[in-house]
């Protein structure tokens, strides 16, 4: 029950955080691209609950959930959305590029597939030093069509790199449905053809995700080489704030909304976990978000004079 509660809290934090972000986007306090994870919370939450602090994480432009579930403080994430110097990337990255060295979060990457080679390299570092670590690498099913997916799966399987590939199959890559993206019907099966363990998981069930991640991480830490989880999920909202969603119908969205991972876990926690408990949790999360927004609003921006900092390191060879 303690475990479930923690998972629920995490998912609610992500959900409410993003709902607030959407509002802040409408009021133009957040700009750039904003890709919401609403509906997919079970994936980040379940997988990352099984990682250790010394493990590494690589994410995409749809990275709020990964950052929060990884433990990056919410105010640092919110400040980043605001472009403030207190943001987890000092305001230089924005929504798509959340970084946090202290949590070994190696970024939000906005090039589809671009994070996969990085994950392989991080894993190589762990491997060469003989550390029993896991690199969790998140990417969409769309990314699995890119050449880098192939190259990295092959390389990782060949070198038995400790990567946990987490393919968030939310059925769409922007407006492109799975069947228009992939000739093969089953991604996990295809991934398995590289000679690594790969299986599909109900990505709307955080407990199932967690259990799969546990098994996979165990295998990886034991030197079994990479694993791939295909996490079947759905984004309830548009691809980004610009997307008019012409490519899918309301019924389909409604069907998936019925599988809401938060409701599902919450229901499984009845009756021990009461409506009052939920209200308390929601209130706590709301307070955290309010504080994060207030802190972000009050924070400074980086002085323009520092524009050219961090292009290269501040020590010279």
């Amino acid at each position, binding site marked *: 029950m303690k475990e479930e509660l923690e998972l629920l809290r995490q998912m609610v934090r992500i959900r409410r955080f993003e709902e607030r972000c959407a509002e802040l986007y409408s009021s133009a306090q957040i*700009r*750039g*691209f904003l890709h919401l994870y609403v509906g997919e919370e079970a994936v980040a939450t379940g997988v990352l609950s099984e990682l250790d602090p010394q493990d590494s994480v690589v994410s995409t432009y749809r990275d709020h959930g990964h950052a929060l579930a990884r433990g990056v403080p919410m105010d640092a994430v919110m400040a980043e959305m605001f*472009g*403030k110097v207190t943001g987890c*990337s000092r*305001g*230089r*990255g*924005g*929504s*798509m*590029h959340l970084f946090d060295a202290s949590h070994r979060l190696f970024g939000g*990457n*906005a*090039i*589809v*597939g*671009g994070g996969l080679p990085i994950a392989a390299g991080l894993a190589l570092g762990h491997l060469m030093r003989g550390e029993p670590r896991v690199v969790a690498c998140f990417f969409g099913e*769309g*990314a699995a*069509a*890119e*050449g880098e997916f192939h190259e990295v799966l092959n390389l990782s399987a060949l070198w038995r790199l400790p990567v946990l590939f987490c393919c968030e199959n939310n059925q769409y*890559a*922007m*407006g*492109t449905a799975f069947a*228009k*993206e*992939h000739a093969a019907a089953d991604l996990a099966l295809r991934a398995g053809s590289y000679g690594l363990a790969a299986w599909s998981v109900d990505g709307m069930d955080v407990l199932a995700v967690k259990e799969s991640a546990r098994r996979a991480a165990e295998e990886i830490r034991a030197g079994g080489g990479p694993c791939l989880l295909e996490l079947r999920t759905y984004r309830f909202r548009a691809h980004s704030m610009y*997307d*008019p969603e*012409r*490519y899918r119908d309301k019924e389909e969205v409604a069907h998936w909304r019925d599988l809401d991972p938060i409701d599902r876990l919450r229901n499984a926690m009845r009756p021990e976990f009461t409506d009052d408990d939920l209200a308390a949790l929601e209130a706590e999360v709301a307070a955290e978000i309010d504080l994060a927004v207030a802190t972000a609003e009050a924070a400074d*921006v*980086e002085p*323009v004079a520092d*524009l*050219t900092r961090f*292009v290269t390191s501040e020590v010279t060879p």
Partner: protein
Amino acid sequence: MKTTYREALREAIRDAMRRDDRVFLMGEDVGSYGGCYAVSLGLLEEFGPERVRDTPLSESAFVGAGIGAALNGMRPIVEIMTVNFSLLALDQILNNAATLLHMSGGQFAVPVVIRMTTGAGRQLAAQHSHSLEGWYAHIPGLRVLAPATLEDARGMVWPALCDPDPVLIFEHNGLYNLAGELADDAGPVDITRAAVRRPGRDVTLITYGGSLTKTLAAADDLAAGGIEAEVVDLRTLRPLDSDTVLECVRKTHRAVVVDEGWRSGGLSAEIAARIGEEALYDLDAPVRRVCSAEVPIPYARHLEEAALPQTASIAAAAREVVRGG
């Protein structure tokens, strides 16, 4: 008629597809999504999925497929969502599209048109804000276009398709909503020459694409201060129309190049170098360049603004050049 840059492009594509059934459009989300910048909205309905092809996320494969289809008698228009992703297809563009004609001793021309969005200014951060058209303009065998007006958005696609060789069209993301009047019979334009968008005698401001608006605004500012700036829109980044540029500079004796690309090794360097080579003795002041700061473009608005050429910085550079700053 009133139109927008986006609609003008769409009309140009529609027109080409009606005229020539070898023409088809292919790229990520050009179909049911309507194009990531909505350029192709409605074309799927009109032409069907055979001629408006949604591709998988595989830039190298579908750009290469465009090249192959062009080799095989088709006239593909390939849309790469943005220049940022074109790096994944660069090998196909450089080593195949630009090279096959020469390598085959003249046997295989590649009449492919590749369109992509370019530029910064929308707080999309480092990986989504590149201006790499200058890189492409370095490649022999390509024609590189940068429509900056409604006329050019409407008029460049057809001549690009008629060009027997590969043509790249760079559409600045800040231009899609540009609205204005376009002649009802607007059609193909010359894709070989630069255009003088504003006459002037004191200094020549040379630019293209997304920076044209800012540069024209700077010229207005300058005029208010008594400086008559001439504005040249390069339009074709390769092959460069040096003649027009040099003619202008020989007249004004001063030049500022405005380019949203990074300064070092950018297109601005080429323009400055050519002026120095061909019109050195006509210059009354060093050529100035107003470019993006040499940083990965940051997300925060104030930093992004500071990183890019702006009306004020363009005007300031022009003043310095004229007044000996």
